[in-house]
């Protein structure tokens, strides 16, 4: 079942005795679990009728004992098991859950959360047959604006479609970050009924700044989409393209130094000192370095030089120059920029 289908069930409060939430979007998982808890167990009864346990810290038999107990105060008991996959490593634990699943207690909602379910193995094979499975996967790009609009509606206001798109552009697809920004926007707009694009720019544009280090990390990971998004935010926030070029040149110089096999054989502290970074970041830089060939690095320097020249000697839109630069740095071809300068 998708999260959307779960929301329809949630409206009717028709939850299954056993549910498994899984997937990468932990914001939806948390919200789904909260929905069940809030729908089923009254606030005053939560001290008695709600058990929240961590699969890495409890025994399977304790979870089954909780689930097999009748509610003490209200009509239902909810037992939430986080990191469920860590609870069911042993054969005994698998058998216990199989036994409980074959006859779950109707007054209990057993809510399991797993980030890594393996549906080829027990107890997940049993859960597939006997529990409600709710997959919480990250939303696609085109789904995020409508999710924002829906979220704003749930929070009691409306959002202009352009405001939704702008918020996505600023924050990305992380639902948790979007929710955090929405809460700020709500405080900012006060009694206004609709969120307008300028509200998003005023609140998110001002507060959610990126640094060149975040940019260099996504460039190092060769993630063009995220790189362009962060670059866009930095330029909109007024950061100087020349300064970004200086910092990216420094970053590629570090990668260039790391391509020296002799240096790579040195002790870690020495490598870190040589390239001028904290030893804490060395592992990350080494990982970045292995993704860039010498030829790629040479082209990166050409592109950085070309971009710097274009910014200083032409009237080309700096935004365009920087976009081309980031694309060149990631793809390893300097032509998009050098063709314009003749370098």
């Amino acid at each position, binding site marked *: 079942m998708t999260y959307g289908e779960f929301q329809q069930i949630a409206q009717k409060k028709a939850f299954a005795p056993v549910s498994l939430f899984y997937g990468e979007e932990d914001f939806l998982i948390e919200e789904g679990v909260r929905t069940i808890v809030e729908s089923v167990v009254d606030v*005053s*009864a*939560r*001290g*008695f*009728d709600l*058990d*929240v346990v961590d699969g890495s810290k409890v025994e399977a*038999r304790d979870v*089954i*004992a909780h689930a*097999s*107990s*009748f509610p*003490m*105060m209200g009509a239902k008991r909810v037992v939430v098991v986080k990191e469920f996959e860590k609870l069911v490593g042993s054969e005994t634990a698998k058998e*216990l859950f199989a*036994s*409980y699943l074959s*006859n779950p*207690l109707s*007054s209990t909602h057993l809510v399991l959360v797993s980030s890594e379910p393996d549906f080829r193995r027990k107890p997940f094979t049993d859960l597939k047959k006997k529990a409600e499975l709710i997959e919480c996967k990250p939303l696609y790009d085109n789904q995020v604006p409508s999710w924002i609009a829906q979220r704003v509606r749930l929070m009691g206001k409306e959002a202009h479609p352009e405001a939704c798109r702008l918020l996505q552009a600023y924050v990305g697809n992380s639902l948790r970050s979007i929710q955090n920004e929405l809460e700020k926007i709500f405080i900012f707009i006060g009694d206004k009924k609709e969120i307008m694009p300028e509200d998003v720019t005023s609140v998110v544009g001002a507060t959610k700044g990126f640094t060149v280090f975040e940019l260099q990390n996504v460039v190092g990971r060769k993630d063009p989409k995220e790189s362009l998004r962060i670059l866009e935010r930095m330029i909109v926030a007024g950061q100087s393209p020349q300064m970004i070029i200086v910092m990216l040149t420094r970053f590629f110089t570090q990668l260039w130094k790391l391509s020296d096999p002799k240096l790579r054989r040195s002790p870690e502290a020495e490598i870190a000192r040589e390239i001028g970074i904290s030893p804490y970041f060395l592992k990350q830089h080494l990982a970045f370095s292995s993704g860039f060939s010498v030829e790629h690095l040479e082209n990166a320097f050409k592109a950085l030089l070309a971009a710097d020249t274009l910014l200083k000697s032409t009237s080309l839109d700096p935004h365009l120059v920087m976009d081309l630069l980031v694309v060149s740095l990631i793809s390893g071809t300097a032509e998009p920029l050098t063709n314009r300068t003749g370098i």
Partner: protein
Amino acid sequence: MKFIVTSSELQKALTKISGVVPSKSTLPILENILFDLTKNTLKLSATDLEVSMSATIEVKGAEDGKIAVPAKRLMETIRALPDIQLVFHADLSANRIKMITETGEYVLMGEASDEFPTIPQFKAEEKLSLSGDLLRRMINRMIFAVSTDELRPAMTGMLLQVRETELRAVVTDGHRLVRINYTGIGKMKLKKDIIVPAKAMSLVSRSAEEGENTMAVDTTHVQFTFGNTTLTSRVIEEAYPNYEAVIPLDNDKKLTVSRDLLLAAVRRVALYSSSTTHQIRCTLKKNELRVSAEDMDFGGEAKEKVVCDYSAEDMEIGFNSTYLIDILSHIDSDEVEFRLSSAVRAAIVTPAKQKPNEDLLMLVMPMRLNV
């Protein structure tokens, strides 16, 4: 710093407060006991930052001073000594401690007293006098049912409700609940609800002395004083769940049974219960209670009949045998009374005859049968 003390006196005082010392702590200074000598009075203090205890003893003081002494090594040394006089000498500039007996000399390194956390200063709003017997009895009856779930901090403590003429204590772990009311302990000005951590209440039970002890409360701490010993604990600043709503008032099926007979039967039958669920089945018929268990995994089963007084309709109810044994073990009357409603509702267990001025009630949730 220098004084002379008998090893037995020192051991007695150390034993009282050593329960507070954490065996392992991220703050190593907490593994020490603070010695503070003023003239002939030696004050010993220990803390884990939540609970602190101090005890004073009379010694022959020669030179005042303060030093933190490693608790474990000190306790082991004092325990190994016969009842003799010893000279305790501390060089405060080097934190070097020397204990001299007639035949030996023991040197250990301490810590500077200013490293030791300050014991909270206590401004009592009101004080309440309680007998040591009452405190011990109250705590020992109920401490077993305190929750250990750190996600529900309120339930990891004991709720004490002090009213004009009544002291009420409540603990629950979400599966069991114990409530004791004491009346007739004099008129008190104090009217307060506090949640005291279970560790502090266990220490109170161990330290309470014959005769009068006092309990004092301020906004964030509670302090118990037993003779020359003081225990100060932070209170748990959380709202306690509405336990009164959990106690059913309409359980109309009454079962009266010998506590010893039932406890023995449950203990024997529980040996054959599933090691996972510890479930036992109680089958009730007119004047007959049958306790049975089966272990599906190993194919064993057991049943016992216990004579009882029961005249309501037949019923079957399942319990976790561990919970039932805990409850029966902590009631000290000859007969116990169960008040039941159905196989899915909480059962109330009380002594058939309450002690004077005491009203003890225990509640246990049944389990689903055949799991």
